């Protein structure tokens, strides 16, 4: 089993609230990723990191922000949630030289009402 954890698993929150989705891994992986996926649709890369203090935006524009202060932790924050942010958010990690061998968390299903 992969040692990558996301919390919360489910979240229902009101419009305008600030939220942080947590992602932690205990494998010492340098690379971490956030994907957004709507039901039955493709995964879209929204953020990634190659190590501590490294963060980049992915292919899909997102109003969220991320930080990478510690190797094991890669939280995603929405300053002001909107109904359009309703989606599943998936966190993943991989070794620096293992770009195709990623481990995914269980995901956070976010609903903004």
């Amino acid at each position, binding site marked *: 089993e992969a040692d990558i954890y996301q919390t919360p698993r489910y979240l229902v929150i009101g419009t305008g609230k600030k939220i942080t989705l947590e992602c932690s891994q205990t494998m010492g992986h340098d*690379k971490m*990723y956030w994907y957004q996926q709507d*039901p039955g649709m*493709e*995964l879209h*890369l929204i953020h*990634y990191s*190659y190590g501590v203090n490294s963060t*980049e935006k*992915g*292919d899909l524009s997102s109003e969220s922000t991320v930080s990478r202060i510690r190797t094991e932790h890669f939280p995603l924050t929405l300053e002001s949630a909107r109904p359009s942010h309703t989606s*599943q958010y*998936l*966190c*993943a990690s*991989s070794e*620096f*030289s*293992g*770009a*195709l*061998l*990623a*481990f*995914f*968390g*269980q*995901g956070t*299903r976010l609903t903004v009402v």
Partner: protein
Amino acid sequence: LAKTTQPISMDSYEGQEVNITCSHNNIATNDYITWYQQFPSQGPRFIIQGYKTKVTNEVASLFIPADRKSSTLSLPRVSLSDTAVYYCLVGDMNGGANNLFFGTGTRLTVIP
């Protein structure tokens, strides 16, 4: 980044062998071929990876012809629990985040 093409969906009866083919005509010398499985409401899970010829593990086999322009994921004797989306990824192991591009995948439905 090599573009991949795979069928949108497939149906199979329980107990049959399922073969899902992925085309990657522009595969580069350093690229590996990796397959993932995703169940509803879960993150993708690594199944198998190969560079050439045949790779087999406890879950699946991966067949890669000599020209490496395609690959076939083979699932022996599928069960209902194999119903999932299967993704073919091609890229350099030392590549950037865009190597983890999942595309639309192949939605496999196993029928009783």
